[in-house]
């Protein structure tokens, strides 16, 4: 049997006006991002708004959020492969593809944040000098790349089998997906530990951080998938049943409950005990000594999260597409703020020497960030476009009867 994925690449060239406008739109954003990145490489990270007191910013915030998106694929993998819930099993592939995209974006955000990206190889074992197991960043390199490999293997294997009109062999796939479940949890746990282990930053040095990471990821990631699934359903011949969508919405309702509970637990502890370590939380929600850059955003996130929770919790609203999509957007925005800038920046405010440096991303940071998001969107669009004809058996690579449609 002769298999050639390149045949399927032809389908990337087929599409309507909307499809090509979308690609051009994304390409412009990517080009803008690249031009700003070249400027950043030339001048250094001084073109960002980061400085010594706030040494991580927009890039690391996006990275953190996207690790959550990648980890959230597990919410589809478990019902699909462990409980053999058919409506989700049919679409789990697109969730895994989203995880792959998110991890690639994570790696891009990390690279964008590095002072000397050309020295990146120093972090790898053997050729470099990886500080394993001491550095959580070394752990993150391992778990993120491992997760990327696991998901790529699963997706390519499923597509490979689909291309031959064969059902995938569960004996091959099951060990991979079984491993990917704890691995998904590990990528977000390790990322949480990366902050959590720093005793110098009381805001991050709270045991609730990793559970909160996981809970919020299980809200925003699936919400993003719900929106993407509706788009896929609209623009392709792939059948995505309402059952699958509403089941995922129900799972988000549970995750959201847990997320808000953990959030409440943290708010109680900090405000009731009212120690000097309250300062970062005070900064987030009320401002500190007149500095209040985050206040609007944090309240917006909280209101969005609570409203989204109510819409998800009530079966009638989550069963209505208008409310469901509204809730999805609110939870994505809410978690993006809360697990992005709302997590990273208060870790640095006040600084370890008590300084308050107000940070808001520069044009360069925003342009590069948008460029990476656009790349992610482009990559996912093309990936899905490539996969759908194979998955829907509209294309096969059987030498005898290859009917490219």
């Amino acid at each position, binding site marked *: 049997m002769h298999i050639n994925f390149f045949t399927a690449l032809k389908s990337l060239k087929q599409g309507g006006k909307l499809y090509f406008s979308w690609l051009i739109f994304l390409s412009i954003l990517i080009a803008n991002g690249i031009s700003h990145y070249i400027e950043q490489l030339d001048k250094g990270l001084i073109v960002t708004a980061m400085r010594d007191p706030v040494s991580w910013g927009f890039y690391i915030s996006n990275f953190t959020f996207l690790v959550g998106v990648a980890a959230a694929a597990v919410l589809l993998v478990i019902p699909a492969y462990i409980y053999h819930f058919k409506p989700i099993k049919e679409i789990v592939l697109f969730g895994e593809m989203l995880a792959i995209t998110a991890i690639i974006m994570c790696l891009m955000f990390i690279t964008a944040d590095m002072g000397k990206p050309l020295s990146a190889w120093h972090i790898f074992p053997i050729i470099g000098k990886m500080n394993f197991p001491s550095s959580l960043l070394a752990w993150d*390199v391992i778990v993120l790349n491992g997760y990327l490999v696991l998901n790529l293997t699963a997706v390519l294997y499923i597509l490979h089998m689909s291309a031959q009109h064969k059902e995938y062999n569960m004996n091959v796939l099951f060990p991979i997906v079984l491993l990917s479940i704890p691995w998904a949890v590990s990528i977000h746990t390790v990322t949480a530990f990366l902050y959590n282990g720093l005793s110098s930053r009381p805001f991050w040095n709270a045991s609730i951080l990793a559970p909160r990471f996981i809970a919020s990821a299980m809200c925003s990631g699936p919400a993003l998938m719900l929106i993407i699934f509706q788009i896929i359903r609209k623009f392709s011949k792939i059948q995505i049943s309402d059952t699958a969508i509403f089941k995922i919405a129900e799972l988000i309702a549970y995750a959201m409950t847990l997320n808000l509970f953990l959030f409440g637990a943290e708010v109680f502890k900090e405000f009731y005990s009212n120690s000097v370590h309250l300062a970062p939380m005070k900064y987030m929600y009320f401002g500190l000594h007149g500095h209040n850059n985050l206040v609007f955003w944090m309240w917006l996130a909280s209101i969005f999260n609570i409203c989204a929770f109510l819409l998800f919790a009530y079966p009638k609203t989550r069963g209505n597409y208008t409310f469901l999509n509204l809730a999805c957007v609110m939870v994505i925005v809410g978690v993006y703020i809360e697990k992005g800038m709302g997590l990273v920046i208060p870790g640095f405010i006040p600084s370890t020497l008590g*300084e308050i440096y107000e940070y808001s991303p520069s044009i360069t940071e925003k342009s590069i960030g948008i460029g990476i998001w656009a790349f992610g969107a482009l990559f996912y669009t093309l990936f899905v476009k490539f996969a759908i004809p194979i998955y829907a058996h509209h294309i096969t690579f059987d030498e005898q009867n290859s009917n490219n449609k």
Partner: protein
Amino acid sequence: MPCNNDDDDKKKSISISRRGLLKGAALGLASIAIPVGNAEASVWDAFFQKHFTEMSKDELQSTIARLEKEYKEKYAVDIKVGAEKPIPNVLFGYGLDLSRCIGCRKCVYACVKENNQSRHDPQIHWISVLRFKKGEKWVNDLEQSDMYYNPEKTPEEGYFYMPVQCQQCEKPACVKVCPTKATWKEPDGIVVVDYNWCIGCRYCMAACPYGARHFNWASPNIPKEEINPTTHYLGNRPRMKGCVEKCTFCIQRTRNGKYPACVEICPVGARKFGNLLDKDSEIRYCIDNKRVFRLKEDLNTSPKFYYFFAT
């Protein structure tokens, strides 16, 4: 990977084309980030420069020669890059007499000059002097401090000062988190950075409880005439953009029997320095006879930087 002259024509052409390909690929990448004008070979060598602790004597020598040449091109000054080893049976410790400090910041600027810190864009100071209002919170809550005070004259009525710099922890959080082992603690207790090995992830800056680590947000700006040409590989040699730097107790001085620049300049003698393992040293005298404390003792990083009150 230096080119070697091979007489065998065939072998040469093959090896060159392969090498050329690799080089081309690497240079293509490198040209984005490395300023043009460098000799091709030196860009290649710089890219593959090994970790300080893994270089043989010869490799270290040739690396230093290359660095000195680069510095000469950039600053038009003969900069000597030393690699003095730690002195056996020495563990450096620092003492700071808070009752004497007048907040004049002479130490800050002596440090900047001695250690070739970037003067502007970014302005890098390894020492931050915190000013506190008498009677207000301090020590455990630095939020009330001000490091940008700017009066006509110091000391000011109603205020006191606390300089903070790298505390040279025995259990340094920065070393623990560095993903590439680009920073480590030397046997004489100094926490150093291999600037070339640092990838600029700034995880150490997040981990440091003392704000002691500083980042080269851009290529350092140092006036040529103010360059200090006596340097150490792990200390005050000129840095590049994108790496982290920090106080090294003036490793280029202290490993040669001199005091750090900040100790020497202090007009009121508030700064003490010496060998913690030497019972007769001044620093040991302070620890044994004064009431010393260390900053953020609760974090358990065991600083070798002792604050005390002599009077």
